[in-house]
């Protein structure tokens, strides 16, 4: 059995309200098990407690209750963080440094030797797409560039575990895609990636496992395909070239200019319909199974929580 | 309010008001400065202790600033308070930095201008006391006493201090011997002059020449003075016994009032005047001649 990369048990944390009045329960007993290897998505709406959890894991704040283990060891020992690459939420960096200096600075905090550091810095800045911009002070970087530098510094120690707080925020669609590819590549290298996000599409595309947190509590967690594949809701078949056969007439959703689309409930029906259509000389344009989307799970979770 | 004319009008009004207010402020200021008559015009300077606290340990720097103030503005103060303020500022300044020689000397100079002798000596006395190594301050004090106040007693006292602190400087020794001779301590004076002569006997530098010349001159005079004083004393005793002055020096010797009939430094006899009972040197004095012989 592999050890959990991150094990979070019954984490509780409160903050004082504005002017120390009142009490905000940010986490109300969070449990997480992040297996080694794979991509774990930590999703939840704004203010759910994602960043708070990550800050506790990286030792920036201290929980009221509960414990955290990283690769089986308590996270209170700072040396554990040698194995963690962390990208904080909307990274704030020393803006008087250049991108290169920044990455090197963080590298030296890991005790990486100079020669190796130089090579790695160059490689990483390349990797995150900042080639040619190494010598510009961060003050002049755009938000997306900052995010990329942040990612580069998170990778500097070649850690087994990457904790990324909203790695895709502030990036354009191309940038997001690049980062997604990068995360997948890192996974192939055998790293564990734990990232928080509220962009569900991204999460859905790459996560192996997810946990959904709402108002400081985990409401859903598990392997993504298990959460999603429980049921295919329906299949859409679109075709052209023939009239819709009479037995399928009542299933039509749209039909115009020779194109038609029919919606079917179960797999047997689909087999039959396909056979019929092909026999009649029709041309199948697409077959789309409609699963429950993460979004739907997400929204329904929130609904449930609200109703509580 | 939108009309430009109105705006301009208001602006002008403001300008006029401003002009008059400046004028008035100026008047106010003159009024404030006139509340107290000029004779009492003054600024507050804290006590030494408070100044020390206030200086945050940078006492020398604060003392320097006070010194500048003191030097340039001592006469800014109203007539009636001027000297008490001068004294006060001086106290604070020298308490902050007791080692600043300039402060004592310049303060004394400023007090000397109106001839406030007590202040002059007070300032210098403090310097002498606070700087036990320093010979310049007592030397300065001696100069005031000797040349300006002509108080030989005091001059001798200060030169004595300066001499003790620096026995090598001939200037000091010379002036000490000079003030001693005027004060009446002729033997010590003679001793010092002879030492100076001894030191520069074979010195041909301008300084050596000067001191040789001056010490010879003084030795000549002091020796005469000694002889004169001795004779006068003897005459006094003679008169007490016989009710009149002795007719000649020989009589004085015969009666046992003097051991020798005094000769002047060049070995000649003095001229005795029985009426006044004093002697007078009649030798023509040529120092150049004398130097070789002494």
């Amino acid at each position, binding site marked *: 059995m592999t050890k959990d990369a991150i094990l979070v048990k019954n984490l509780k944390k409160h903050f004082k309200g504005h002017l120390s009045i009142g009490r905000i329960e940010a986490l109300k007993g969070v449990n997480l098990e992040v297996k080694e290897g794979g991509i774990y998505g930590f999703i939840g709406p704004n203010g759910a407690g994602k960043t708070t959890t990550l800050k506790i894991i990286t030792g920036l704040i201290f929980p009221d209750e509960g414990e955290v283990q990283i690769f089986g060891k308590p996270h209170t020992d700072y040396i554990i963080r040698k194995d963690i690459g962390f990208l904080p939420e909307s990274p704030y960096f020393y803006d008087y440094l250049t991108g290169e200096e920044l990455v090197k600075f*963080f590298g030296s905090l890991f005790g990486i030797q100079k020669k190796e550091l130089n090579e790695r810095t160059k490689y990483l800045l390349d990797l995150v797409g900042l080639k040619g911009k190494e010598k510009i002070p961060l003050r002049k970087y755009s938000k997306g560039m900052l995010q990329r530098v942040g990612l580069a*510094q998170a990778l500097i120690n070649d850690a087994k575990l990457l904790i990324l707080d909203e790695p895709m925020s502030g990036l354009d669609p191309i940038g997001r895609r690049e980062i997604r590819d990068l995360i997948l590549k890192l996974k192939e290298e055998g790293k564990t990636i734990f990232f928080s996000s509220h962009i569900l599409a991204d999460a859905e595309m790459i996560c192996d496992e997810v946990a959904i947190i709402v108002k400081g509590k985990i409401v859903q967690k598990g392997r993504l395909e298990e959460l999603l594949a429980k049921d295919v809701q329906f299949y859409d078949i679109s075709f052209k070239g023939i009239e819709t056969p009479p037995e399928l007439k009542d299933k039509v959703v749209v039909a115009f200019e020779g194109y038609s689309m029919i919606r079917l409930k179960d797999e047997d029906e689909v087999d039959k319909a396909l056979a019929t259509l092909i026999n009649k000389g029709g041309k199948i344009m697409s077959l789309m199974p409609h699963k429950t989307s993460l979004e739907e799970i997400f929204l329904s979770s929130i609904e449930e929580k609200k109703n509580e | 309010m939108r009309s430009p004319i109105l705006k301009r009008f208001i602006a002008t009004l403001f300008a006029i008001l401003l002009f008059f207010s400046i004028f008035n402020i100026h008047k106010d200021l003159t009024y404030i400065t006139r509340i107290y008559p000029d004779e009492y015009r003054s600024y507050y300077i804290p006590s030494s202790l408070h100044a020390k*606290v206030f200086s945050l340990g940078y006492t020398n720097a604060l003392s320097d600033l006070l010194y500048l103030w003191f030097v340039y503005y001592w006469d800014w103060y109203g007539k009636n308070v001027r000297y008490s303020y001068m004294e006060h500022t001086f106290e604070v300044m020298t308490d902050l930095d007791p080692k600043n020689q300039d402060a004592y*000397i310049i303060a004394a100079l400023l007090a000397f201008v109106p001839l406030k002798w007590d202040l002059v000596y007070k300032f210098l006395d403090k310097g002498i006391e606070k700087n036990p190594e320093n010979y310049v301050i007592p030397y300065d004090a001696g100069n005031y006493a000797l040349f300006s106040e002509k108080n030989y007693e005091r001059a001798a006292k200060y030169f004595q201090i300066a001499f003790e602190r620096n026995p090598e400087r001939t200037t000091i020794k010379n002036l000490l011997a000079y003030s001693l001779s005027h004060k009446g301590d002729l033997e010590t004076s003679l001793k010092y002059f002879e030492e100076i002569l001894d030191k520069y006997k074979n010195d041909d530098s301008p300084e050596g020449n000067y001191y040789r010349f001056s010490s010879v001159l003084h030795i000549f005079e002091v020796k005469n003075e000694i002889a004169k004083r001795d004779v006068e004393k003897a005459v006094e005793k003679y008169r007490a016994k016989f009710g009149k002055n002795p007719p000649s020096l020989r009589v004085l010797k015969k009666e046992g009032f003097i051991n020798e009939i005094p000769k002047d430094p060049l070995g000649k006899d003095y001229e005795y005047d029985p009426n006044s009972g004093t002697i007078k040197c009649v030798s023509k004095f040529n120092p150049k001649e004398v130097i070789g012989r002494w």
Partner: protein
Amino acid sequence: MSRFKLSCMQVIAIAKNTYKEAIRSKIFYVLMAFAIAMLGFAVILSFLTIGSQKRVILDLGLAGISFFSVMTSIFVGIGLIYLEIEKKTIYNVLSKPLPRASFIVGRYFGLMAVLGINLIAMLIILSIALLFFKGFTPMIFYAGLFIYLELAVITAIAIFFSSIASPVLSAICTLAFYLIGHTSSTFPEMLVPLLHNDIQKKIALFFFHILPDLSILNVSNLITYNIPIAPGFTIRGIIYAVLFSTLLIFAGCLFFKKRDLV
């Protein structure tokens, strides 16, 4: 790699970064300009004085250097930790395998390096001014050493306060410390005459001995008159400053260790 070696590397990295931060910020140059203006002022005043010009330059120059360095150390020092939290730059640093103490110590050494270079630059300017007036004495570098020791203490205080309090509060506390440290040597002289019975006097003197006394780190007054300095004086100053700042930094680390960085 041993933990100790790693910590050393981290402290050096953070110190270097702090140094970069300072020399790339404007405030550093503004303060330098102030100090140079101060020295210029000393020279101008020295023209006005009657008597020894070099004394005025030396006195005012050293006082100015000391004062401005202390102000720099206070106002940069209190921001050293707090601004990092404020700007959230600290998150990324402390999420690395770095004990929080290393962070504080690194910041401290970084600022001390900056202050040291600053100080040397000012002393060189002062030396040039003094050379010009034939009043140069190498002893100003000795005075510089003591100014530096004082800076070590003041910076430690600033860091200590900034690790537990807001910048305004820590500025006030650090300034208060500076003022007390610089005036406490006059307290017995000031207070004792005001008290009437012996017990009161004893209590007052006891408190006086507890107060920090920075006057033992002030030699400017001695070197103006070339007063010979006892050999024990230097050692005592160094021990005092090192002990004092180590203790403060240590206490600062203790407080900072348990703090939520929100």
